[in-house]
């Protein structure tokens, strides 16, 4: 930013109107500047969040005001096998998908951190799965997982002759669960890779030079330089990733809608099914609210579990 001449000469000559002078009164200006953002967030985020918690304690249905029923919704959920099933699959989905995304994403970041021709083009291409609307790429996966015309089955059966029958990807519970996780990992890799790539670029090359002079192997350099230096950024990216994977909705809704036999319901899709499609707003809200403890726990776990290393060592980088 090497701007040395200011366009202020002309402005100073004009006498500011009273409105402009009002805006020069700092507290007024601050309030005016914050009003749109805070207003939008209060009306459409904070208020609904509170309302959602309130609804969870009522028996509201669509078109009918509910009354306060205390913990009844939650007691009902605790006895509901479908809710437990959704809890199980949400945790499982988040766990496996996060491990997959971070292992592959980190690997891809390390690969992209090398020098090769067309590097920036490749980075741009790699981000595509993250740009394209999830539902639309989910539809492509749905087609890839088609029971009869799956291209994966075609490869395995007709080209490689590894299997003799087509795989029923989405028709049976466990294959369906893993198919969704694979699609989620596919979608998550680019974001993890690009974020971690940014982290990798902040590591000073001199650290590696010193390590190489000391005779450290590639694995040792990764283990003792790359990994510790990446912990803070890993903590943040993983926290984000866990929150958005746990509360995922679109992918499951687009590909299986919770089926077969409700085996792939996440808490979010179950909440939608009961709350919006089924009209039981109170119960749906209770399911949505039941995600909060998991989210808080997962966030604390991932953030402090990984970030701890940093403040234990007391290194104040940046």
């Amino acid at each position, binding site marked *: 930013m090497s701007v040395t001449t200011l366009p202020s000469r002309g*402005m100073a000559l004009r006498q500011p109107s009273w409105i402009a002078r009002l805006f020069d009164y700092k507290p007024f*200006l601050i309030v005016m500047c914050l009003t749109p953002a805070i207003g939008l967030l209060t009306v459409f985020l904070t208020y609904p969040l509170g309302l959602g918690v309130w609804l969870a304690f009522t028996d509201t249905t669509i078109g009918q005001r509910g009354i306060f029923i205390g913990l009844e919704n939650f007691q009902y959920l605790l006895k509901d096998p479908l809710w437990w099933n959704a809890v199980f699959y949400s945790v499982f989905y988040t766990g496996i998908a996060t491990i997959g995304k971070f292992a592959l994403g980190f690997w891809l970041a390390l690969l992209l951190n090398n020098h090769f021709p067309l590097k920036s083009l490749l980075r741009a291409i790699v981000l595509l*799965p993250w740009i394209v609307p999830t539902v639309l790429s989910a539809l492509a996966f749905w087609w890839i997982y088609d029971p009869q015309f799956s291209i994966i089955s075609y490869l395995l059966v007709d080209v490689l002759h590894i299997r003799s029958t087509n795989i029923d990807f989405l028709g049976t519970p466990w294959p369906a669960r893993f198919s969704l996780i694979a699609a989620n990992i596919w979608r998550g890799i680019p974001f993890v890779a690009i974020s971690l790539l*940014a*982290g990798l670029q902040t590591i000073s090359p001199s650290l590696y030079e010193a390590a190489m002079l000391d005779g450290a192997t590639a694995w040792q350099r990764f283990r003792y330089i790359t990994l510790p230096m990446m912990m803070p950024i890993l903590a943040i990216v993983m926290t984000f990733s866990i929150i958005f994977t746990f509360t995922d909705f679109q992918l499951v809704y687009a590909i299986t809608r919770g089926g077969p036999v409700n085996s792939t319901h996440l808490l979010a899709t179950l909440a939608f099914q009961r709350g*919006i499609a089924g009209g039981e707003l109170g119960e749906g809200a209770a399911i949505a609210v039941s995600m909060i403890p998991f989210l808080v726990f997962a966030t604390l776990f991932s953030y402090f579990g990984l970030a701890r290393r940093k403040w234990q060592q007391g290194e104040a980088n940046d």
Partner: protein
Amino acid sequence: MTDVAAQPGNSNVASATPDTMAWDSRARRVMMIYLPLACFVLILLFPFYWMAITSFKPNAELLNYKQHNPFWISSPTLAHIKHLLFNTAYPTWLKTTMFVAIGSTFLSLFASTLAAYAIERLRFRGSPYVGLGIYLAYLVPPSILFIPLATVIVQFGLFDSPMALILVYPTFLVPFCTWLLIGYFKSIPYELEECALVDGATRLQILRRITLPLAVPGLISAGIFSFTLSWNEFIYALAFIQSGANKTVPVAILTELVTGDVYQWGALMAGSLLGSLPVALFYSLFVDYYVSSLTGAVKE
């Protein structure tokens, strides 16, 4: 987390990485870098290839792998796209989606520019907390909010209206944009504003003539992010919109095009392809901003 330095060009800072220093042979490099990279690219791009190839395949080829190689098209056809454009409401959905995405992007940019300016430039007691509060709003996932929000939307009389989406999308766009723009404003030297103040410019003039023009790269990347995020949004659009004409592309394809037991894969994939194109085009125009601000934004 709030001190984001989102400068374009950050991604180019990569200097010598360990492998350029290593004495590795060409073969080793191919095995360790190029081969895995090729696999990644192949897997990451395959669904798009499959989407594209399905959109142009005639139905006879689409469902017959025995006589036709599924990876190629022997007689490409525009039938699926024609069907989509002339026999369905696809153009309307595209228009609605565009309207919603542009509307919510402008609303979010307006709100978050002012907020970021107030937090970063007008420093007041508690400004870091306001910044943190706005940032934390990003961590509240839509899956928790959509049920109560639906009742709020009904109360406001906005149910089934694209306006509802334009007003609701900023809840996840504003935190992100504000966060990004705070970083940009931080990179603009204070002295510029101070000089202008001394010269007698009003605060609004400073914002309009000095700070905003210098923050244009930040505004562009915040705009791209907002546009793509609102184009992609699904759960609110699914919950708040009922009538076919007001649906956004992702929702409409899933609820209006998926009918019956026999899925029209050609039309579905053509719809997905056309629905992805605007974001992909938009993204490719500004890809440098996009990648660098993404890499910049996550840097602590």
